């Protein structure tokens, strides 16, 4: 018997806007019950990757190549109607601004019931149970409330209820805590972690926050300028990064032990503009280890063993 296919398998995904390859050959897998964090600066292509998995890319973005399999099923070639049936049931998504992601004119309950394809009257018991599961007090009253009557944290719980009520195997979470207060952030992350574990849901978490990654993820994929720089288990990757970009990112996290008023570590330079990508490594011009080979050819993602991969010629010299 062959083992069950991963909940999500992205293979050499490439997306472009006009002539620029904003996502270039990204490969990634998320197993059932696993939380994989995709980390990178804004514009590195992580949100587009998630939208490509949902097949809800903006009109300007073209799918150039690569396959996406959800529970073994290739969704890149599915007809729209079949894809629509998968959304909410096989895979679902939560968003950065929970209040903006809810229709202000519809009740919370009606929106959650939509994920079950049922009118609220029939879905009511299930919706109430789900609201309870995401930790909302007084769920019976919350069902008939409007988003403006709830706080941001409560709205994100509602979004999570919406995303998980139909028991999808895969949840995409696009910066789910960025818009929330720090204390609420921790609660929401703990909730995601718990629900994913209980239900065996695979989670692809998109974030720019290394703190969030450390809190919740099993594995990390670090993205830079549309490519994966490094992947690996969270503990090993944080302890010994194998890509200069990851190393600099980790060094840039402010720590309580830092001398007060000391300069924050930053990564010099800027992310190259899409369209100005050269033939070589996209991080080369900011990289302390870069040499002539780095600017001439793109480093492939190499298997370093122990579940770790790095797209750096000098991976062994990092750190």
């Amino acid at each position, binding site marked *: 018997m062959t083992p069950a296919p991963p909940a999500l398998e992205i293979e050499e995904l490439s997306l472009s806007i006009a002539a620029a390859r904003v996502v270039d050959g990204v490969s990634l897998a998320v197993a059932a019950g696993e939380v994989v964090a995709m980390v990178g600066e804004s514009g590195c292509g992580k949100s587009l990757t998630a939208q490509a998995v949902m097949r809800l890319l903006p009109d300007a973005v073209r799918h150039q190549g690569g396959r996406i399999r959800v529970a073994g099923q290739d969704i890149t070639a599915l007809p729209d109607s079949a894809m629509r049936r998968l959304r909410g049931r096989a895979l*679902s998504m939560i968003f950065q601004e929970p209040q*903006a992601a809810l229709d202000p004119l519809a009740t919370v309950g009606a929106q959650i019931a*939509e994920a079950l394809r049922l009118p609220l009257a029939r879905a009511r018991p299930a919706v109430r149970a789900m609201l309870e599961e995401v930790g909302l007090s007084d769920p019976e009253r919350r069902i008939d409330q409007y988003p403006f009557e709830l706080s941001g944290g409560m709205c994100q719980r509602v979004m999570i209820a919406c995303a998980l009520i139909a028991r999808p195997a895969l949840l995409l979470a696009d910066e789910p805590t960025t818009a929330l207060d720090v204390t609420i952030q921790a609660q929401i992350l703990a909730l995601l972690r718990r629900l994913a574990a209980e239900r065996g849901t695979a989670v692809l978490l998109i974030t720019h926050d290394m703190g969030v990654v450390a809190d919740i993820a099993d594995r990390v994929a670090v993205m830079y300028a549309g490519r994966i720089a490094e992947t690996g288990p969270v503990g090993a990757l944080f302890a010994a990064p194998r890509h200069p970009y990851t190393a600099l990112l980790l060094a840039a996290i402010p720590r309580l032990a830092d001398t007060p008023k000391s300069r924050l570590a930053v990564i010099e330079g800027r992310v190259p503009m899409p369209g100005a990508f050269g033939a070589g490594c996209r991080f080369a011009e900011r990289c302390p280890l870069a040499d002539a080979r780095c600017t001439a050819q793109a480093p492939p993602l190499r298997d370093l063993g122990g579940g770790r991969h790095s797209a750096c010629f000098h991976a062994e010299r990092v750190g």
Partner: protein
Amino acid sequence: MPRHIAGRVGQALVAAFGVLSIVFVVLHLSGDPTLLLVPPDASAAQIAELRHALGFDRPLLAQYLAYLGQLAHFDLGQSLVQRAPVAVILAARIPYTVELALAALAVAIGLGLPAGIAMAVWRGRPAARLLAVVVLAGQSLPTFWSGILLILLFGVTLGWLPTSGADSASSVILPAVALGLVTMAGFARMMRIAMLDELGRDYVAAARARGLSRGAAILRHVLRNAAIPVVTIAALEIGNLLAGAVIVETVFAWPGIGQLAMQSIAARDFLVVQAVVLFVSLVYIGMNLLADLAYAWIDPRIRRGP
């Protein structure tokens, strides 16, 4: 909610009172209204007699209070030209204008909103561009000209519809189309902008992420949200419709208050003109109040807010 509605009703009442007062002030600022009512060759004695008969020789405050007292009894005075109570003259015309305005509104909403929705949903496609041209044309044609074109085509050349008067049930069609076209364009453009604004919002992506088709997301979520800004404009457009009725009723010889206003201005029938101005202003205020009530009905943030 009750606070919101009470506030809006109060504002509307203040605005209505303001309109009544402004009409009174304008009447008296423009000099002795008696002079507007008499023929140019009237003698000073005749003028003085009429002035006294109409009460224009009393103190201004007394006149103002008397004027408000009359309005409270729906007494708009006596038309000196038509020798009939102004209220009776107006009441005979209002049903025609209401019929015309409602028919024009049906044209404007029936064509304008779907056109606006289609232009937003089909954005970038040839069909949307074609619609944009039609809408622009509808907005650009002055009603007096589009009215004449409609008469020529459907009345004279094809002979399908009556061209003037209000003698048969189909008489309202041509003036309603002429009047509704401009408003239709306004509705279409507003609806398009509101739809495009809403279509780009996160809740649409979220609705699709939980399995709604684009059409279902539009029907269940986008339309209601897009309706909020359109409702405001709709109230103003209905006001403009009444202004447009003055021209359209004249072109099509439609016996409504627009035609009455034109005739009364020409005949210097001052009290009738004043009554028409009052009526149109009060309708305008009433429409805005309706729009405010509609908000509360659509938007829970107003309905259930503080």
